[in-house]
Each structure stands twice: as C-alpha cells, then as structure tokens.
C-alpha cells in the first residue's frame, strides 16, 4: 500500500485499526463525526487564519519589502481577478478557463475512478491479474505524468484527448492502489461470517468485498482529486490555449503577477470544492465509515 503523506490515508489507517480491534466497543455516539459546535469552531478558525494571512500580506506590501510586480497587494489581485472574470485575458474569460479546466479534470478523474477501481478489484481478487498488471503499476508510478506529455502530444496531438488522458494516467495508480489496499485490509471474519451463512464466492464479492472496500476507495478519490488537479495544471502549462494552467503561465510570461496569483487562488478553491464534493458523496454513501 502506498505510503503517501496524505491525511486522508492516515484517516483510513485509523478506520482500519478501529475495524480490527474493537467493533464491539462501538456505542451510540458516532466517533467519526465532530459535533456541530466543534465543526463551526473549526471553520471559524479557518476564516480567521485566512483573514490574518491577508492582513500580513497587505502589511508586507505596504512595507515595500518586494517590488510591486513581484508581490501585488490583495486589492490589486482582486482587481485582476475581476478584470479577468469580466473582460477576460488574451481573449479567454476566467469563466472559460474554469470551465475547460473543470471539465478536463472531471473527465480524467472520473475515468481514473471508473477504470482504476475495477482494475484494483481484479488485481486483489486474482493473483494472475496482479502478477501481470503490478509490474506496470510499479514502473509507472514513480514517473511524473509530465514526462508523458511529449509522447502524448505525438500520439494524440494538442487537443483535449492528451490532457484528459494525462490526468487519467496520473490519477489511476492511486485509485488502483487504494482499492487493492481496501480489499487487503478486510478482516477475515467478515468473509467467514458470510461463508458460515452459506455465501458463495460471487455473493461474497458483491455483499462483503465491495462494500468493505468503499472507505478506501473514497480515501483514494480524495487523494486522487489533488493529483488530478496538479496533473492538469502541468499539462495546460505546456500545450493549451485555454484553462487555468494556461492562464497562469501566460500571465507569468507577461509579468501580470496579479492574474497569476488570482489564477492560483482559483485553482486552490476549485480543488478544495471538488474534494468537499467527494466528502459529501462519501458521507451519503458510507455513513458507517469510522463506525465499524
């Protein structure tokens, strides 16, 4: 299993530990969820920290520590944002850039999930499939997706296909590995209960393996969406004429630092929102997560 320093994976490890050690200890409260007061407290503190950072930023700009072209003020960035949003930049509005980037990430990421989960399940269930696919996975994983770009451009041109495929290729390993990890971490007793009650192989797969794997699949998705975004921005830096990565790159070459920073913030917010979306789906699909 991958040892990514991501909090999501750490969460998953904790879930698994809870599953293994004391399922009988579960009581009427749900330890996986914080109370409403606590949650709002946490959100409040996030807002405070952001406001503090903005104030510090403004202070640094006011002190003229850096030239304005290197570090424009927050207000200037807001201006750039508004201008890019309304009038556009280099013929493309911010809305178009967002739309293109979101669609590319969305398709590439969903493709990675839709392909990666079954591949992971097959690899976990069949030693033969594992033996065939794993070498490619191990070889491919350390390669940064960017390294594939020249090849993909040769193969697929400069259109949307190479970008989406790049995101898919960048994101699929984490989906496969999370799924395999999810299957491998299923406590033996979950299977034995089913077998005792007369379950056949296929029934066990559908009724025990699949639901048991869902938490790790969602963990993989939460990590994967970040990978998808970084892959996309990298792809757009090289071969694109629209998109947030392209916007940031173009603005940088013309020293429009305000737009660069605005673009970066937009990318951050979009990535965060997508992860939030995954969390909402997760809560609906596996409310039992952390309550095993």
């Amino acid at each position: 299993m991958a040892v990514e320093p991501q909090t999501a994976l750490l969460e998953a490890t904790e879930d698994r530990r809870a599953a293994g050690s004391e399922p009988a200890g579960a009581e009427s409260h749900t330890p996986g969820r914080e109370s409403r007061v606590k949650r709002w407290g946490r959100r409040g503190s996030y807002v405070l920290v952001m406001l503090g950072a903005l104030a510090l930023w403004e202070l640094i700009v006011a002190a003229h520590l850096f030239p304005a072209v290197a570090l424009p003020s927050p207000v200037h960035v807001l201006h750039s944002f508004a201008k890019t949003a309304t009038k556009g930049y280099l013929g493309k509005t911010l809305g178009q850039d967002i739309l293109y980037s979101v669609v590319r990430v969305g398709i590439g990421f969903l493709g990675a999930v839709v392909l990666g989960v079954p591949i992971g399940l097959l690899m976990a269930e069949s030693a033969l499939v594992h033996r065939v696919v794993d070498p490619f996975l191990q070889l491919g994983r350390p390669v940064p997706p960017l390294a594939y770009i020249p090849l993909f451009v040769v193969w697929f041109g400069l259109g949307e296909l190479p970008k989406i495929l790049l995101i898919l290729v960048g994101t699929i390993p984490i989906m496969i590995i999370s799924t395999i990890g999810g299957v491998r971490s299923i406590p033996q007793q979950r299977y034995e209960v089913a077998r005792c009650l007369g379950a056949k192989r296929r029934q066990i797969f559908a009724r025990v393996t699949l639901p048991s794997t869902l938490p790790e699949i969602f963990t993989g998705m939460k990590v994967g969406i970040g990978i998808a975004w970084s892959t996309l921005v990298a792809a757009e830096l090289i071969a694109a004429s629209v998109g947030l990565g392209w916007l940031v790159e173009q603005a940088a070459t013309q020293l429009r630092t305000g737009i660069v920073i605005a673009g970066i913030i937009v990318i951050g917010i979009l990535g965060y929102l997508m992860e939030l979306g995954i969390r909402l789906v997760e809560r609906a699909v596996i409310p039992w997560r952390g309550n095993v």
Partner: protein
Amino acid sequence: MAILEMRDVTLRFGEGRSGGDAGPATIERVSLELGDNEFLTVLGPSGCGKTTLLRIVAGFEKATSGRVLFDGSEVKAPGSERVMVFQQPWLYPWLSVRKNVAFGLELQGGRVDWKRVDEMIDVVGLSGFSSYPPYRLSGGMQQRAALARALVMSPKILLMDEPFGALDAQTRQDLQEFLLSLWERLQVAVMFITHDVEEAILLGDRMLVMGTRPGCIALELPIELPRPRTEQMMLEPAFLEIRRQALDTLREVALRAAGITGTGAGDLPGVPADGIGGGGAPETGQAQQNSTGQNSTGQNSTGQKSTGQGVNEDVRLPGAAGQATEPVAGSPRGA
C-alpha cells in the same frame, strides 16, 4: 443420536499444500461426540487449539487426518447448518440490524421470510432496534444480533468461540442466561468455547478440558446440575467439585506445557493422552503449590481477554435482562 462425531482428528498447519513442511500438531487425535441438542462446553488455556477445533467443525480448516462427521456426512466446507458465532459480533456496518439478521436468508435466493426475521429479532430482544445500524448498539446488543443472525438459519449446531469474552461481567451474565433460555427453546446443539471455568460449568451439559501443545482432550466431565441453572449454583458442592477437577486438569496441562519448554518439571511425560480421564490425580495437590499453578487457572489468557473495558449496555432495552430468563412467546422456528 450424535449430530457431530470427530474421530482421531489431527491438524498440522502448513501441511496439505504441496511442498509445505508440516509443523507440530495443533490438534492431535481428538475424538468427541455431540448429541442432538446437547450443550457442550470446551475449556482450555489460551493457544491450546480451541478455536482451531471449532473451525474444523465449521469447515474452515481441514483436518490433516481423522474424520469429522456432521449429521452423518463428512464436513467439507462451511455451511449454514453449522453456524459460528465469534468473540466479536462482526455485523456488517453498512446493513441495518434487520438486514444483518436476514443476511444468511437473503443469500439463499428466493423470497426472504421477513416475518421470521422479525420474530428472531424479537426473540433476542432487539425489536425496537431493527432499523438501527449495528454500531449504534452496545456490545451486548450487537452480540444478540449476531446470535439472531445465526439462529435465523435454523442451524443444527451453534459453534460459539468465546462469544461473551469481550463483554463486561454484567452483560456477560445476562447473555449467558439469555443463551440458555434460547437453547432450551430451540432445537439446537451448542459447542461453546470458553476459557472461563465458571462459564463452562454453568452453561454445559458436558465439559471438555483441553490440553495444550498439541491440543487434545485432557478431561471430559458430565455436568449433572439441574436446569435452569442459576448463579447461586456456583456455591453448591457439585459445582465446586466439577470446578476443582477442571482446574486441577488445567494445572496439570500447564505443568506439562512448562515441562516441554524445559522450565523445570521436565520429568513429566509430554504425552498428553495420559491426562484423559485423569482429573483429580493425586499429584495435582502438590502442583497447586507449584509456581506454575497460579498461572494455570484458565483465566490467564493473553490480550484476547478484555473484560470490563467499559462496554456497557448503552442503549439499554427495557427489561432486557429479565426477558432473558423468562419464556419467550412464540416459537421462532415457526412450525
């Protein structure tokens, strides 16, 4: 008539696959019989092979040699006529209590007899909690649900592996009484594993005490106490006598194990078969004085035992404990 018959069953882990080198026997030449509707308790120190023995009957492990006959035919694979109940409930968290109980019936295909499911949930006293996810229930209630999930299959034998070992004392006592009341009502044999002497005596018609390394049957004792059994019986001479014999055997077994590992007592024979029927042998009086003696009460298990770790009946059922001792209306077996 015997529902279960084990003849000279030996199990070595690592054998069976080609090229696998066989380790020492985990279970050696165990023979036992279990009558229809009999309640057999199996007592033994941690690691002696109790779980392995049960898993052989369940069909999860294959005996290296010997025969395991269930209801007249060889045990080859797990099946719902021999349902196992584990120390932890292992309910599926994505299913409601009701769906968990119905799990085995749904596997059979065809229409699920939901009336029967609900009756069984009622029998185990969880009717108010059908729609709850299992993790909202206390440990004791979860174990009741696990019991209902097993019983709804109408098994001919319940294989219980220290099912109350993880519960606090009060909940455990409730569930012991509850299990007995259920068993008296249902036509089911029980093979009940425990490392708690009192539990073994209080529940069983008959008790086996296992020896260790290799796992074997060191002592077989009928428990001729009247039913219904009560806590008060634990003070009766008959109870205490059975208890003494069981503890003596456990001490003997521990000494033997110590002898094998070479910490004194090396002169004791390493062949556990000697111990069969030898409960209360004269030399055990001295063994009691031995330093190993205090470690061999059968309650000295390793980390597995976690009594009193605050697993409370959190969402307590009104009168749950009382219900356990009273007759339950309506046969869940349904004609």
